[in-house]
């Protein structure tokens, strides 16, 4: 019995070594800076599990025009210095990294200068510097789909529509309860600009990290009795907020969360208190052919990355799949220009990211129609979309509330990011300009 166990383990090790060394030079190599332990493990394992599942699906169906994807994983624990170490460790392996995605603001900042120096494109899906959408100043950074600023603009747009028109927001009261960190303060300029323009009262209430005590903040909110509450939270702060709202009797229907407050892990711990709560997202919840393929071709072959297959299609998993789809599409785009079926360099993939065009037809072909907004990037616009969606937690699952994608006042956010990135360029003495393919 024991001998059997050891043999099993040894075969496991042997297979593992074989898998680890299967990262050959002719594969498109992607470093995975994941976090599967620590307080944010639920998000990290879901997101990177989703990306790896999609890689496995691509490899099982013939690769990107025949080029297989390989990857190596490194545990960052969501810690900036561990993340930098991981990045430095993995970037040169297997012929060099194709791209990088840390899924952590701290790590993204820590390697922001390094990716430009190493010439490796970094994607920051739904977080990081909003002004990095200006590719003339940040040629190597791609805050794909939506940045914080466009998300904030989308929130106001949605609330306006809910109130029956943007002009109806006049005289209304909106509270933003936020995680007291760089992340929580990111949307201030957008909300402030909107408050001035539309004439609503904007109140900011801070919650110190980690946010597991919010009684006084919610009493404050109860007193102010706002028309809407925007919950800009993270981690344990989110379920605590929902529970505190239930305790002071503030209707959950009037709370709108940021997308880091919009996963199963954020609402399930709050139990019934979360019912009726809405949050932003950049995925439409539901099932898609691509997810079915992952179940059939990856999980059925016992290659699935998540131990619990029911997490396939959960919010974080779907975000991971979305990210991987965009990465693969960027590589595909680069191949179209630089040679199909060839190995792409990081610089060529950067060009692919800058010329990404995932329209509805392409989404249909991928089996992901409507799963995420269409993405069309350019040198000026590294974000490619700016559209968001609102979802509602009915106690069991997330349901989309808005049938269409919501887009806020992009002209306003554009002007803000132009100004902010120009300041960055001046501080770092960067001459803005498009990078040639």
């Amino acid at each position, binding site marked *: 019995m024991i001998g059997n166990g050891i043999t099993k383990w040894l075969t496991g090790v042997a*297979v593992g070594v074989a898998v680890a060394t299967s990262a050959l030079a002719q594969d498109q190599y992607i470093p995975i800076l994941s*976090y599967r*332990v620590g307080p944010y493990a639920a998000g990290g*394992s879901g997101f990177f599990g989703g990306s790896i599942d999609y890689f496995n699906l691509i490899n099982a169906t013939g690769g990107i025009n025949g080029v297989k994807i390989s990857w190596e994983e490194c*545990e960052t624990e969501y810690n900036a*210095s561990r993340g930098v170490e991981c990045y430095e460790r993995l970037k040169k392996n297997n012929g060099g990294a194709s791209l990088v995605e840390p899924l952590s603001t701290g790590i993204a900042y*820590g390697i922001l200068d390094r990716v430009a120096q190493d010439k490796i494109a970094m994607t920051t899906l739904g977080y990081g510097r909003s002004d990095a959408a200006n590719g003339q100043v940040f040629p190597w950074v791609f805050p794909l789909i939506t940045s914080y600023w466009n998300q904030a603009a989308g929130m106001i747009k949605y609330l306006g529509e809910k109130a029956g028109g943007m002009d109806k927001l006049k005289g209304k009261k909106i509270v933003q309860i936020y995680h007291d*960190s760089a992340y929580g303060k990111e949307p201030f300029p957008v909300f402030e600009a909107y408050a001035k323009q539309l004439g609503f009262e904007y109140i900011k209430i801070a919650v110190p990290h980690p946010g597991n005590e919010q009684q006084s903040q919610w009493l404050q909110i109860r007193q102010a009795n706002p028309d809407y509450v925007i919950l800009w939270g993270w981690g344990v702060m989110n379920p605590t907020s929902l529970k505190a709202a239930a305790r002071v009797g503030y209707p959950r229907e009037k709370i709108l969360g940021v997308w880091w407050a919009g996963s199963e892990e954020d609402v399930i711990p709050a139990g019934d208190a979360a019912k009726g709560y809405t949050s932003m997202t950049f995925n439409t919840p539901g099932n898609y052919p691509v997810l079915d393929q992952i179940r059939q071709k990856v999980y059925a072959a016992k290659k699935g990355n998540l131990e619990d297959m029911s997490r396939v299609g959960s919010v974080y998993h779907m975000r991971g799949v979305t990210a991987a789809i965009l990465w693969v599409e960027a590589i595909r785009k680069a191949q179209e220009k630089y040679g199909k079926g060839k190995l792409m360099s990081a610089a060529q993939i950067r060009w692919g990211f800058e010329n990404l065009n995932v329209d509805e037809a392409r989404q249909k072909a991928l089996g992901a129609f409507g799963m995420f907004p269409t993405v069309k990037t350019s040198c000026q616009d590294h974000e490619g979309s700016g559209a968001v969606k609102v979802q509602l937690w009915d106690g069991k699952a997330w349901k989309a509330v808005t049938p269409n994608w919501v887009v806020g006042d992009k002209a306003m956010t554009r002007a803000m990011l132009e100004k*902010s990135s120009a300041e960055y360029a001046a501080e770092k003495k960067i001459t803005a300009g498009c990078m040639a393919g």
Partner: protein
Amino acid sequence: MFYREAGQFKTSYDADSQIFPIRQDRIGVALMLAVAFVVVPLVATPYVFSAILIPFLIFALAALGLNILTGYAGQISLGTAAFMAVGAFASYNFVLRIPGIPLLVAFVLGGLCAAAVGILFGLPSLRIRGFYLAASTLATQFFVVWCLTKIPWLTNNSSSGVITAQKLEMFGYAFESPASKYLLVLCIVLVLALAAKNMVRCSIGRSWMAIRDMDVAAEVIGFRPMRTKLTAFAISSFYCGVAGALYAYAYLGTVEPEAYNLDLSFRILFMVMIGGMGSILGSFLGAAFIILLPIFLSQFAHGFGLPNSIASNLEAMVFGALIIFFLIVEPHGLARLWQIGKEKLRLWPFPH
């Protein structure tokens, strides 16, 4: 046999009071410096420089700062990361607002700002001790990070409170390659470590240790507690401030105030505890343990081909077990282990 000091006679006061009285130690240190300054820059890869050596040296410097305060002067502090933050953000503002200021001067000024904050928050130490003091230094931690997120001027009105460190340029030379950054950090750490070593050997260090061992007795024999404690706070914070500035400039490049959170303070405190309280060498050993061991474990675990979720958890478990193991084997830290080993080596191979 190899480590015998028989025949090494000291014939002058200078020889008697040198830092390393044993010749073998001097040779060892000289060899280590030669390796650090000559061999390492020749053989190390950029990965080793920018992911291992630079953070190791910076954290060793921060641990050294805390060791002065906690190990030598006996004042427990949980505000180390806050002092680092003050150093980093102050240096950033000096470079930003005084055009043409040499970066080294900005680092020193950043350190001095941290020292000023250290003195301010060291004042409660005159009345309270032990765990109560630890709780009051916790206030520094929260207050400084709060200030940095609340006062936009400190972060040059960056909407999210994130700063991007200016280019590392000194004497017209841009420190861009990992090797050059490493050498710069090494020089700064070496100078400060040497200064610390000498400080703890002279009257100021002895006054710290007297206060640490029994403050009433120290007061009776003539040490002024206020001055002694506050110099410990000031010098310790200066070290932490310089380490914080290096962390921003030579290591990460772009930092948010959250990077200097309570976790970092704890990590540095653990470095001091594991390395050895009241030991300069201990600061380096502790930093090596806390920074390098997890990296080594992670490389080892992942090289084994275990599934990543298991490898990551295993890594954390082994690391925790090792901390407990070392603290049981030698509660006085790794530096004490080295000291015991050295004493054994002196007698080897013929112990009594």
